[in-house]
């Protein structure tokens, strides 16, 4: 099965049938709750028991937002799929819901939000679903508006399934350009099944607060049986996972022909004018004097 992101735009992919299937799967419910709990932990809100105003971006049917409510917080959920939002309404979630496209910006007053989470959604911005879609512009609009609406020092934690390193780099680049500090926390990096990547972003100048927490299982500790096993065949939004970094590392003798072909193909897909592949492609040039 190809990734959902490659099958159809999100508002089409998450139609009524899919929205229901998604929200009635006990496995998905559990996985999303666990990821949301971890995202909330990474938000590192002050431990004073005061409820906060949070965003849930790509809130879907409210599985992620429910974790926020259970922890006493108020939230505003954004989603582009009317069917997912219908299910959320039916389930009487406590957050407020908006039918909106995060790639158009969030449309909030500056500095009012105490934190934002996004669970398994932001990778959708990397795909051009309409001829008018320019992923880079959409990432720029999204991160720019996210940065502006957060209070200084507030965090955004985005768990996402990038298709490859290029995507995660592109996403990270636009987050940094918007002014965020932060990085990626990877939980269970050694498990192909349980591996989860969280972009942890802080608004405002770098401080002690900005330092990243460690990912779970980073030092080789393995995750518990259940955390590993119930991710099997998961359809939460990813079918191919990030390859471990190692495989993409370049070898010492330069990047190789395969890499060049891949790169050229990517550039072609993006619409650049790229010379055809020939037997000369990526050959070493003779030294000229």
């Amino acid at each position: 099965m190809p990734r959902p992101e490659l099958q159809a735009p999100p508002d089409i992919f998450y139609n009524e049938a899919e929205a229901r299937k998604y929200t009635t799967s006990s496995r998905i419910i559990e996985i999303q709750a666990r990821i949301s709990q971890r995202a909330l932990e990474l938000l590192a809100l002050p431990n004073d028991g005061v409820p906060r105003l949070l965003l849930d971006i790509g809130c879907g049917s409210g599985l992620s937002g429910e974790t926020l409510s259970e922890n006493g917080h108020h939230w505003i959920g954004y989603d582009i799929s009317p069917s997912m939002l219908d299910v959320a309404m039916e389930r009487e979630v406590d957050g407020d819901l908006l039918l909106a496209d995060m790639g158009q910006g969030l449309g909030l007053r500056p500095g009012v939000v105490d934190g934002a989470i996004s669970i398994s959604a932001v990778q959708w911005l990397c795909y051009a679903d309409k001829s008018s879609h320019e992923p880079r512009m959409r990432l720029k609009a999204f991160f720019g508006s996210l940065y502006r609406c957060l209070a200084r020092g507030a965090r955004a934690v985005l768990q996402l399934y990038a298709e490859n390193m290029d995507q995660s780099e592109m996403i990270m680049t636009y987050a940094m350009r918007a002014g965020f500090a932060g990085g990626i926390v990877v939980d269970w990096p050694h498990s192909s099944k349980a591996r989860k990547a969280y972009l942890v972003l802080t608004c405002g100048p770098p401080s002690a607060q900005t330092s990243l927490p460690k990912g779970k299982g980073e030092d080789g500790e393995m995750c518990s049986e259940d955390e590993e096993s119930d991710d099997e065949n998961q359809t939460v939004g990813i079918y191919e996972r990030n390859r471990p970094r190692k495989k993409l590392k370049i070898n010492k003798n330069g990047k190789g022909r395969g890499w060049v072909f891949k790169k050229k193909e990517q550039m072609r897909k993006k619409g650049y004018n790229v010379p055809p592949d020939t037997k000369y492609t990526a050959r070493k040039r003779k030294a000229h004097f």
Partner: protein
Amino acid sequence: MRLLTHNMLASNVKGVTNGFPLRLEAEKWAEKEVELNADFLRHMFSKIEWKALAGAARAVGYGELPDEADASMLDSEDFLRRFHHALLEIHVEEGALVCPESGRRFPINKGIPNMLLHEDEI
């Protein structure tokens, strides 16, 4: 949508420089009781645009908010109760949000504002 969210939302339409507050046209709303949390209200107070809240509250028939408010009023239990009710207990179900500058209407259906922009508004 509760008035809490209305108070945060601003129109995002291309070319609009001041998209706040969106005018609330409420046709149908419901009230739902929630537990009052004074800490949350105190935390939120500085972020709230009071005039917009009082105006939106009037649009749903709640005229019990003062026209102006300052932080000293947070000591009054009566004030907190009114603030709480306006902010969190009124749900707008049908109606529209209207951009103060461009006049663009964002419809609210089944409690959900449709904030999707058309291509020429981005």
